[in-house]
């Protein structure tokens, strides 16, 4: 019963949401709305940053100078997305240090896809094509999310994402037109990244714990299954064009629905990776932890220098 009793503020808040008004940092908001956003935005920011690792793994081995420059710029963009999102999350009254600490403590999550290894050059293609492709589908939808700073950072990020997806697909196009070994490399990457990419959209709507309230608050604008379907439909066509086979024997065009049907997603794998037991979970977190610890003396030096010089300039004044 108590849940049904809404304060006047909450009623007003929902009215603004229903009228498609954006909520801004200084506006009143329910504590749960704020917490949900912090969880989602920090998870998004951490994903951008942890996602730099599998691709960064190939920066020194990119096969041409042109590809090396593209990949450097791409990975740099992802770090930039992390920065926008951390600052957008900070408008909710939490600091970047706290967010990073939650990541290190294992409290905050990041996209489970980044716990899979980038083993071959084709994986860099598959990541750009599928992982950035899935991210775009999600982020386009989030451009209309109800929290103003989040929506605006999505607009900015989406502009860069289409370049990411194109460079990945371009790698796959080139490989699939290449030697027998290159084609096999491309197919193998698709085989390994297909299902984890579908899992990026989260559990089916019926199983999704946070979805109903998030939809009501318009933090989410489309459901997990709707977004996943959009991604499947576009990717199947793209695979077709370059002669790669989606690793799903049950995949079939459904004329009634006007969409592709797919086989069953292995949710036990998803649960395992989310829980921290995927192929690279430990390395990803350890890497982030180690780098953060190694950088401590640099951050200390900056702080010490600034303190000294502030002191000196105050004395001089």
């Amino acid at each position: 019963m108590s849940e049904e009793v809404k304060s006047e503020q909450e009623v007003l808040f929902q009215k603004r949401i229903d009228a498609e008004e954006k909520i801004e940092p200084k506006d009143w908001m329910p504590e749960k709305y704020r917490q949900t956003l912090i969880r989602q935005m920090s998870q998004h920011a951490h994903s951008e940053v942890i996602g730099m690792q599998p691709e960064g793994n190939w920066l020194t081995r990119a096969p041409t100078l042109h590809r090396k420059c593209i990949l450097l710029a791409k990975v740099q963009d992802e770090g930039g997305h992390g920065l926008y999102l951390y600052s957008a999350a900070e408008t909710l009254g939490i600091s970047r240090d706290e967010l990073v600490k939650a990541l290190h403590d294992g409290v905050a999550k990041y996209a489970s896809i980044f716990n899979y290894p980038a083993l071959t050059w084709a994986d860099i293609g598959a990541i750009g094509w599928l992982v950035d492709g899935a991210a775009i589908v999600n982020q386009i939808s989030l451009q209309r999310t109800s929290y103003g700073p989040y929506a605006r950072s999505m607009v900015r990020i989406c502009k860069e994402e289409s370049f990411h997806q194109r460079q990945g697909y371009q790698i796959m196009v080139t490989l699939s037109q290449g030697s027998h070994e290159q084609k096999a490399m491309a197919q193998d990457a698709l085989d390994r990244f297909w299902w984890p990419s579908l899992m990026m959209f989260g559990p089916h709507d019926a199983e999704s714990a946070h979805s109903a309230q998030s939809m009501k608050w318009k933090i989410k604008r489309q459901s997990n299954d709707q977004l996943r379907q959009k991604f499947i439909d576009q990717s199947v066509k793209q695979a077709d064009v370059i002669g790669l086979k989606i690793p799903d024997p049950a995949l079939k065009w459904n004329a009634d629905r006007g969409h592709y049907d797919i086989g069953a997603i292995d949710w036990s794998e998803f649960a395992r990776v989310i829980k921290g037991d995927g192929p690279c979970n430990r390395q990803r977190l350890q890497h982030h932890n180690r780098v953060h610890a190694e950088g401590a003396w640099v951050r200390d030096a900056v702080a010490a220098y600034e303190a000294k010089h502030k002191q000196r300039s105050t004395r001089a004044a």
Partner: protein
Amino acid sequence: MIDKEQLKEFVLRLGDDSLVLGHRLSQWSSNGPFLEEDLALTNVALDYVGRARMFYGYTAEIAADGSTEDSYAYNRDCRDFTNLLIHELPRGDFAFTMARQYLVDEFSLAYMKRLKLSRDKTLAAIAEKAYKEDLYHLRRSTSWILRLGDGTTQSHDRLQNAIDDLWGYTTELFEMDELDQEMSKADVGVDVASLQPEWIRQVTATLSDATLTVPANDWVVTGGRKGIHTEALGHMLSDMQFLQRAYPGQQW
């Protein structure tokens, strides 16, 4: 008069300098002390790899033998690379990276300022772009020298150690071999020996502002222009060239 072979070798050297340093800088991606700095280091890496592409592209144009920018990066062995050694030294810690960058930036800015005046129009154009990048690189690296040198005891000591470990490689920056002399005489290249006094003056001023000591000139290692490298270069190449070597002759 300089001939085509001489020009090609000269341009190739500059390509090697740029690629090898760009590669080292790219090793900072997702390893920076904080996110903003991670991205800034990637920016500098991109500038250097971009330079390598321009120099190698020009090399291929001079050679006119069907080679491309990638032929020079991916299909040559350690002894064929002719970069100055300071560029290839392993990444090291952040103090080492910034110390190297500062010493190289002071040199490169002065070098590119001269190369802008080259009678070779392509080299002059590349130098024009590189000079602008170097202005920004030097501003950044100088500010890091000051902050680390005059930061904490630990940062000061790390930076001083890095400068000490790098110092013996700086002499090579100002060496003039026969090719350099020919190129300089023809107003195509740069008389690097003439840049040394001003470099010393600038570096001394910055290091003393940063409460650091200029090391004594008591050891010198050179040989890069002759293909005599540190052992680190071979490992860099085996990493960088892996795909082109494992799957030769493919498009990527």
